[in-house]
């Protein structure tokens, strides 16, 4: 729900920041306000947000903006990198003891999804040809044992239970012996949900840990948890020394900021994400995907990455130098076109821009038209390309014939090119001035067609051509 609104909000904040070469204090503060709100709305803990924003700010101020990005996008890029970094970078693995059985203990609040996740984990191990044993140590909740047994039946996995009159400590002890005797290589202990402030029950968990000596103690956390996630995680971690976290109910529409909070306070990796009702809906956790989910940025990030790869910085620099001297030739135009096309089909690019999705239908970008323009430019001789003044009537006729277009089209293109050239000269002037003019005149590239120009849908909306 908050998805689109956030992306467009960031966009509008960044619109104000266009046309700056370096990220200065003001740019960062502006962007950080939106990022802070985005993170808070995603339920990331307040303190975590504070630290995070401070760190990003420090890193971002004074950064050189990549040629292909706006300062706002640059900030987001940094934010995203930091987010991924904070969430653990790589996909974490489940431990495997070299002296089987490997013991995994599940812990968490009531209703986080421990029992269901226990079943899912068994299925996951089964797929890797492991032989898990499920241990029903939740003796408190009505029918919890039965629930685990039903799951065990569905999966064809043995379930160890001593009823609800035996202490969980005893159950765990006997279960491990049972696993050893039957050559089962994983023991997954499902414990009862408990509040982290319930001292008696936390003590019980500690005793289970003493006896079972688990290789993994996994905290099961509901992805929808709010600000309290830090308290829960901190408390479970300090009392049990967790080895990892499983995030559940991620198939909902929550942004899942709890993931970040939990990781930040415990420092323990998030190992799995539960994403559905079915028993095979357990996946290894991908920090990068979670980062974009929390930010609600959609595909802006992948666009930023694309731009990074596609734009040849050297060429861009050379072009910039020329532009400053007031030159603009067809060669430069072709280069710029080529770099943009490296990013992929135009329609796709539009779709990736936040807020541009709506426009996708209304702005007609005719790929064929782009090809024609390119053909015209390519049908010129080298001299003509570097010196547009040469283009007299006879040469235009030849170009039209060579590119399979008409003289009218060639004329229109040349005229638009001249307009662009004028614009470019102003580019080299004060940036603000340029912005105003561009708005008034409509900085249209030739292939935008008439509709594009009249509608005021200026081509470089947010995306700057590699030259400035």
């Amino acid at each position, binding site marked *: *729900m*908050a998805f689109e609104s956030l992306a467009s909000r960031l966009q509008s904040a960044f619109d104000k920041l266009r046309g700056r070469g370096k990220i200065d204090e003001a740019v960062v503060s502006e962007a950080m306000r939106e990022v802070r*709100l985005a993170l*808070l*709305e*995603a*339920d990331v*803990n*307040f303190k975590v947000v*504070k630290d995070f924003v401070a760190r990003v700010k420090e890193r971002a101020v004074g950064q050189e903006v990549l040629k292909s990005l706006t300062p706002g996008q640059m900030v987001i890029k940094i934010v995203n990198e930091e987010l991924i970094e904070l969430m653990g970078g790589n996909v974490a693995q489940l431990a495997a003891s070299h002296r089987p059985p490997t013991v995994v203990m599940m812990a968490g*609040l*009531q*209703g*986080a*999804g421990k*029992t*269901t996740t226990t*079943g899912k984990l068994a299925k996951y191990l089964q797929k890797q040809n492991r032989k898990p044993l499920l241990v029903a140590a939740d003796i408190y*909740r*009505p*029918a*919890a044992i*039965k*629930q*685990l*047994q*039903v*799951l065990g039946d*569905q999966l064809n996995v043995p379930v160890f239970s001593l009823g609800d009159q035996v202490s969980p400590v005893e159950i765990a002890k006997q279960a491990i012996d049972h696993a050893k005797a039957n050559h089962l290589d994983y023991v997954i202990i499902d414990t009862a949900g408990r*509040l*982290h*402030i319930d001292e008696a029950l936390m003590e019980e968990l500690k005793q289970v840990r003493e006896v079972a000596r688990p290789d993994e103690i996994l905290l099961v956390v*509901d992805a*929808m*948890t*709010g*600000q*309290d*996630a830090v*308290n*829960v995680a901190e408390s479970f971690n300090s009392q049990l020394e967790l080895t990892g976290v499983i995030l559940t*109910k991620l*198939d*909902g*529409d*929550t*942004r899942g*900021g*709890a993931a970040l909070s939990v990781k930040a306070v415990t420092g323990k990796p998030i190992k799995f994400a539960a994403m559905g*009702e079915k028993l095979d809906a357990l996946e290894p956790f991908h920090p990068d995907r979670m980062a974009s989910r929390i930010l609600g940025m959609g595909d802006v990030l992948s666009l930023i990455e694309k731009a990074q790869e596609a734009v040849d910085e050297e060429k861009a620099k050379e072009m910039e130098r020329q532009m400053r001297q007031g030159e603009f030739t067809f060669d430069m135009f072709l280069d710029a076109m080529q770099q943009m096309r490296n990013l992929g089909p135009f329609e796709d690019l539009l779709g990736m821009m936040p807020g541009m999705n709506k426009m996708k239908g209304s702005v007609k970008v005719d790929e064929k038209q782009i090809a024609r323009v390119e053909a015209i430019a390519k049908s010129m001789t080298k001299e003509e390309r570097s010196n547009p003044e040469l283009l007299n009537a006879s040469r235009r006729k030849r170009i039209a014939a060579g590119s399979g277009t008409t003289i009218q089209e060639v004329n229109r293109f040349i005229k638009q090119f001249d307009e662009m050239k004028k614009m470019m000269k102003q580019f080299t002037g004060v940036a603000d001035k340029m912005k105003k003019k561009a708005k008034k005149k409509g900085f249209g590239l030739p292939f935008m067609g008439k509709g594009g120009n009249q509608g005021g849908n200026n081509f470089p909306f947010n995306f700057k051509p590699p030259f400035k």
Partner: protein
Amino acid sequence: MSFFKRLRDAIVQKSEAVTQKFTDGLAKTRDLLVEKVEDLVRRYKKIDENFFEELEEILITADVGVNTVMELIDELRSEVRKQKIEDAMDLQPILSEKLVALLKNDDSMDAGLNIEDGRLNVILFVGVNGVGKTTTIGKMAHMFKQQGKKVLLAAGDTFRAAAIEQLEVWGDRVGVDVIKHQQGADPAAVIYDAVQAAKSRGVDILLCDTAGRLQNKVNLMEELSKVHRVLQRELPGAPHEVLLVLDATTGQNALSQAKTFGKSAGVTGIVLTKLDGTAKGGIVIAIRNELNIPVKYVGLGERMDDLQPFDPEQFVHALFAGLIAQETEGEQQPEA
């Protein structure tokens, strides 16, 4: 008379025991929220930008919800300007008053359950997975049983493993019957049977369990709409209450839950569970503010009788107990 005094007087008339339960159940919430506000007020003699920023932080940490907090802070800002408040201490009662106002039910809105004697009353429970629907039904069945009502339970969660058994255990504990089918059966069919059974047995209150479902699963929400339709068709006026069960630890997503379940199942009220943790359940303020759905009951503990009718005054009283005690002391001294 100061605001706190009025609030306290209002509370005094309510049963001591219930107040105690609220105070105990919300102990953690109170410690965190109130102490922070107190500390803040003490540290800032003068109100400035930093003061508001820290206040914002405290409220957001209580899951009150970003939009609601921003609104609240804006209101406080203009209040400060209007009344030319400089001392942070003077802002404290205004803050509490605004919080109570946010939670207070309009006169038009009944915080009690729509239960009438002499007819079959149907209550439908909905919510996402793991919020405590079945447990809440157990507790509520116990409550109605204590009131001498004839209660019947419908095991409408046919999806989750052993959910039916879980409800049956509650049925045994409380001493009420459970209408059930097999796991995997059509929940609408279970509800249909339950209504027929309730009619023929002359039951006062029928509590219908449903499977937990995430609100963005369109098909599952459709299923819920069907259950709702079956109830409407089989018994005019039913369901008399549709209660959305919310976990107090839930963050901003609770808003989305309230919205979507409101649409598919016509939610009439909220039961806020697990409020005895460290969670503050501040999200109910946001829900109240943005969606206008009243909180009707709160779960404050693990025991059967730990389900209490929600009382906004109690809630705020419990949250600000420290402040109220202080202020009334301060007032009594000059009188003495």
